[in-house]
C-alpha cells in the first residue's frame, strides 16, 4: 500500500480540534463524585431548595443502578478520576466581547462567531461546566422566545422550568440520566411561544478543555403549540492521554402541532466517553426530527427517542455514525408509539474503518391502542476494512394488530464494480471511494444545514484519503 506522507498527515489522527488551552478556571471541584460535590454545585449556582433535593435523590438513584453491560465497553471509564464541575469564568457573556479572551480565542478557532455571522437566530457556547455565552436575536426575544443557559432558565422562569424539567427524562430512566440529574451544569433552556416560528437555527457549542473533565449539560426545550424550532449542537474537545466524559440530558417537549428539529454533530476527541440521553415527548399532530451525527469520541452510547403520545404525532431519526480505529459508536434510536395514527421513520447509516466498530441499536414499540401506527426503519452499514465491525440490534415490539412496521438493514463494502465504473471515467481510486462514501451518506447529509454538510463532506474526504489499500 503506497502511502503519500502528505495524505497521511491529514488523516483522522490529526484531530482538527485537538488543540488545548491552558487551564484558567475560576473554580474546579475535587476529583470524583460525592454528596459534597453535588451540594457544592448546587450552592455555587444558588439554586432553590427543591433542585438540591432533586440532585441528591438523583445521586442516590445513580449509586444504586449498575453500570450497563448490554452496550459498549465502559470498563475504561473511571469515575474517581473525573472532575465533575469546573467553572471557567465568573459570568456568562451577552456579547462576544464579554467572553474571556482565552475562551474567546478557542471558540474563534472553532468558528463560532463566524457561524453567528452567518445569521443564526441565536448562539450559545459552553466551556467546561458552564455556559460562557448566550445570545439571541432581538426580534425573537421580542416575540417571547427564550434562549437562556439552563441556570438562567431556572432563575428567570422558575414556574415554566419546574413544570417541564425532568418530566421527559426522569432521573431513574438510566444510570447516566441519574448522574446528569445529580451534577448537571450548563446547557440551554429554550421556550418558543405558541405559533412562533424560529426559521433560522439556534445553535449551541460544547467544548471540553480540561483533562479528565466530566461535562453534564442539561437542555430543556419547550416548543409550544404550533411553533417551530431548529436547534443545532456541536461538540469538540482537545486530545489528552486520559479519558474525558460527557453525559448530557436533552429533554424536548413538542406541544400540539409544533415542529422541532434537533441536530447534533458530535466530533469529540477520541478519548471521550459520550453517554447521552435525548428524548422528545411529542403531542397531537406535532413532529420531532432528530439528526444525530456521531463522528468523534472513543465510546458513544446515544439513542435519541420520540415518545409519540398523542394522535397524529410523528417522529424521525436520521443517524449517521463514523467509527475509526479505536472508536465504538453505539447509536440508534427509539420510537414509542403510544397513540393512534402515529408515524415514525429511522434511517441509520454507519461507516466503520480500520478496527472501528459501529452499532445500530434501536427500538420500535407500538403500544396497545396505537392503531394505524406506521414505522419504517432502514439501516445501512459500510465496511471499509477487513478488521472493521458493524452490528445491528433492532427491537420491534408490537402490541397492535393494524400497525405496519418494517425494518431493513444491509451491510456492504465498496463494490469493485462501482469502483471500476468510476475509475474508468478517469477518477483516481481514492477519489472514487470518497465519492461512493459521500453518496452513501447523502440521504442524511442533505438534511444538514449547509455549513455542517460541507464540514461532514470534508471530514469524509479526510477520512478517506490514504485509505486506498
Amino acid at each position, binding site marked *: 500500500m503506497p502511502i503519500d506522507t502528505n495524505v497521511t498527515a491529514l488523516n483522522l489522527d490529526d484531530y482538527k480540534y485537538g488543540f488545548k488551552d491552558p487551564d484558567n478556571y475560576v473554580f474546579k471541584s475535587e476529583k470524583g463524585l460525592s454528596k459534597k460535590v453535588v451540594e457544592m454545585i448546587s450552592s455555587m449556582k444558588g439554586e432553590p431548595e427543591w433542585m438540591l433535593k432533586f440532585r441528591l435523590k438523583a445521586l442516590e438513584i445513580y449509586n444504586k443502578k449498575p453500570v450497563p453491560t448490554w452496550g459498549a465497553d465502559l470498563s475504561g471509564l473511571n469515575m474517581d478520576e473525573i472532575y465533575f464541575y469546573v467553572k471557567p469564568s465568573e459570568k456568562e457573556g451577552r456579547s462576544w466581547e464579554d467572553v474571556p479572551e482565552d475562551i474567546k480565542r478557542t471558540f474563534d478557532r472553532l468558528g463560532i462567531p463566524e457561524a453567528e455571522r452567518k445569521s443564526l437566530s441565536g448562539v450559545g457556547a459552553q466551556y467546561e461546566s458552564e455556559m460562557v455565552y448566550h445570545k439571541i436575536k432581538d426580534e425573537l426575544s421580542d416575540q417571547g422566545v427564550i434562549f437562556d443557559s439552563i441556570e438562567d432558565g431556572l432563575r428567570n422562569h422558575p414556574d415554566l422550568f419546574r413544570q417541564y424539567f425532568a418530566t421527559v427524562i426522569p432521573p431513574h430512566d438510566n444510570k447516566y440520566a441519574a448522574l446528569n440529574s445529580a451534577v448537571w451544569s450548563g446547557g440551554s433552556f429554550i421556550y418558543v411561544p405558541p405559533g412562533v416560528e424560529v426559521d433560522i437555527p439556534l445553535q449551541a457549542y460544547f467544548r471540553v478543555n480540561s483533562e479528565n473533565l466530566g461535562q453534564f449539560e442539561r437542555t430543556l426545550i419547550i416548543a409550544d403549540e404550533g411553533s417551530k424550532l431548529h436547534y443545532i449542537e456541536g461538540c469538540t474537545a482537545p486530545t489528552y492521554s486520559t479519558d474525558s466524559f460527557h453525559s448530557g440530558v436533552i429533554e424536548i417537549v413538542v406541544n400540539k402541532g409544533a415542529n422541532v428539529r434537533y441536530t447534533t454533530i458530535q466530533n469529540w476527541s477520541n478519548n471521550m466517553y459520550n453517554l447521552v440521553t435525548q428524548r422528545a415527548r411529542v403531542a397531537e399532530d406535532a413532529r420531532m426530527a432528530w439528526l444525530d451525527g456521531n463522528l468523534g469520541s472513543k465510546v458513544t452510547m446515544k439513542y435519541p427517542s420520540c415518545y409519540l403520545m398523542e394522535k397524529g404525532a410523528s417522529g424521525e431519526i436520521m443517524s449517521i455514525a463514523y467509527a475509526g480505529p479505536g472508536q465504538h459508536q453505539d447509536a440508534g434510536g427509539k420510537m414509542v408509539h403510544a397513540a393512534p395514527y402515529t408515524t415514525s421513520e429511522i434511517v441509520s447509516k454507519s461507516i466503520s474503518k480500520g478496527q472501528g466498530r459501529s452499532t445500530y441499536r434501536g427500538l420500535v414499540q407500538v403500544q396497545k391502542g396505537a392503531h394505524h401506527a406506521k414505522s419504517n426503519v432502514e439501516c445501512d452499514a459500510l465496511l471499509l476494512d477487513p478488521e472493521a465491525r458493524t452490528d445491528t440490534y433492532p427491537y420491534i*415490539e*408490537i402490541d397492535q*394488530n393494524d*400497525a405496519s*412496521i418494517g425494518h431493513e438493514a444491509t*451491510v456492504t463494502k465498496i463494490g469493485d464494480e462501482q469502483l471500476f465504473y468510476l475509475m474508468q471515467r478517469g477518477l483516481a481510486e481514492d477519489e472514487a471511494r470518497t465519492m461512493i462514501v459521500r453518496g452513501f451518506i447523502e440521504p442524511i447529509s442533505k438534511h444538514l444545514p449547509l455549513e455542517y454538510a460541507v464540514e461532514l463532506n470534508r471530514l469524509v474526504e479526510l477520512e478517506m484519503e490514504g485509505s486506498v489499500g
Partner: protein
Amino acid sequence: MSAGPMAGGKATVVADIETAPSVRGEIGPETVEAIVADRGEPEWMAARRRQAWEVYRETPMPTTRTEEWRYTDLAKIGWQELAMRDPNPPRPVSSREEIPAEIAGAFTLGEEAAAWVVQQNGVQIWSEVPEELAAKGVLFLDFATAVAEHPELMQTHFMTSAVPPTFGKLAALHGAFVSGGTVVYVPDGVEVELPLTVYRWMDVENASLFPHTLLIAGANSKVTYVEECASPARAQEGLAMNCGVAEIIAGEGAQVRYTIVQQWGRHVFHYQANRVFAGKDSRVQTVLVTLGAKVARSDVECDLQNPGAESEMLGIYLADDHQHFDHYTYQLHQAPSSRSDLLYKGALKDKSRSVFRGMIRVMKGAQQTDAYQTNRNLILSEDAHADSLPNLEIEADDVRCSHAATIGQQDESQLFYLMSRGLTREKAVKLIVMGFFEEVLGRIPVKGLHKRLSAVIERKLG
C-alpha cells in the same frame, strides 16, 4: 439489555426447576444414576450423562433478564408439575396393526417414506426400515439401540460438536436425562432419495420427554429427514415437557434436508435446540413448522465452519389462543464463501404471542459471505403481540448481508381485490394467509406433507 434506554423486560421471581416442590429429589444425580441402571447403559454413556448434569448444575437458569430469554419467562412454565421421567413407558408393538388407532389416525404413516418409525413418549414402538437401506450401510435407529450397538459413532458425535451440554441450561438438562430419539447415519457417497420419517407421539401428563435426534451425513451423501410430532386431539390437563435436541452433522459435499412439524397438545412446554454443523461445500436445509404446544421455544443454529457451506433455514408458525412461540436463530459464518438464507414467517391469532430473534454473525476472515435473514409477521387479531429482533454482527468487510423484518396486517389492497371478486372478508383473509405461508410450505421436500400441512393450517385459521 436488561436495563438502560431499551429497558422493557419485566422483573420476575425465578422459580427454578430445583426449587419446585414435586420434582425435588427427582432432578438430581440420583435420577441420572437410576436412568443409567434402568437402561443398562455402558459406562461411557453414564459418564456423558453425569458430565451434562454437572454442566446443568453450574449453568444458571435463564431469566427474562437474560437477553436471549427476554420475552419468554421460564419461571412461568410451572416446573412444579413436572416429573423428569415418564412413569409408564409404552411397550413396542409386534405388528403394524397393533399401533394404537389414535396414533395411526394422527399421521399418514409411511407416506412417501424410504423408512419410518413410530415413537410413543420417547419409546420406539414400531419401525419399518427396508433391507436395502441397511445393505447400503444406512443406519436409522432408535437412540437406545444406537448407544448399545454403535458406541464409537455415538461417542464421536453425541453432544460433542453440534450441541454440547454447554449450549445452554436446557440442553444440559437434556444431556443428563435424554430419554430416546433417533440416530441416522448415511455413509459417504450414499444417497437416500425418499425421506426417513419419524412419527413422534406424546400423551404423557406431568412428565418430561428428552428426545434426541442425531443426523450424520457422510461426505457427498444425500438424505432427507422428516419428524412429525403430535398429541391426542382430546384435551390434556397436566403440563408435559418436551425438551429435545437435534444435531445435524453434514460431511463435505453432503446434502441434508431436515423438517420438523411440531403439533403437540396445548398442555406441552416445548423446547428444542437444533444445530447444524456444516462441512465444506455441504448444503443443509432446515424447516421448522410450529403449530402446537402452549409455549414453544426453538433455538435454531447453523455453524458454517467450512468454506462453501450453505444453509437454508425456513420456518413457519401459526399461533392462536394464548400460544407463545419463541424462535431464536443464529447464522454463524466462520469460513469464507459460505452462504446462509433464512426466512421465518408467522401469523398470530387471538391472544397469541410470537418472538423472533435472529442473529447473523460473520467472524473475522469469513470473506465472501452471503447471509440473509427475513422475518415476516401477520397479526390477525387485536390482542396478538409480535416481537421481532433481527440482529447482525459483522466482522468481515467483503460480505453481503441483509436482514428485514415486518410486522403488520394483511394488505388491504389485496383484501379489497379478493372481496371485490365476491369473497367474504374471512375467506379473503384466509386466502391471503395461505398465500403468505405458501412461500415456505412450497419448499418442504415431501409433497404429501405439504398438502396435509396446508389443510392443518387452513383448519387452524378457522
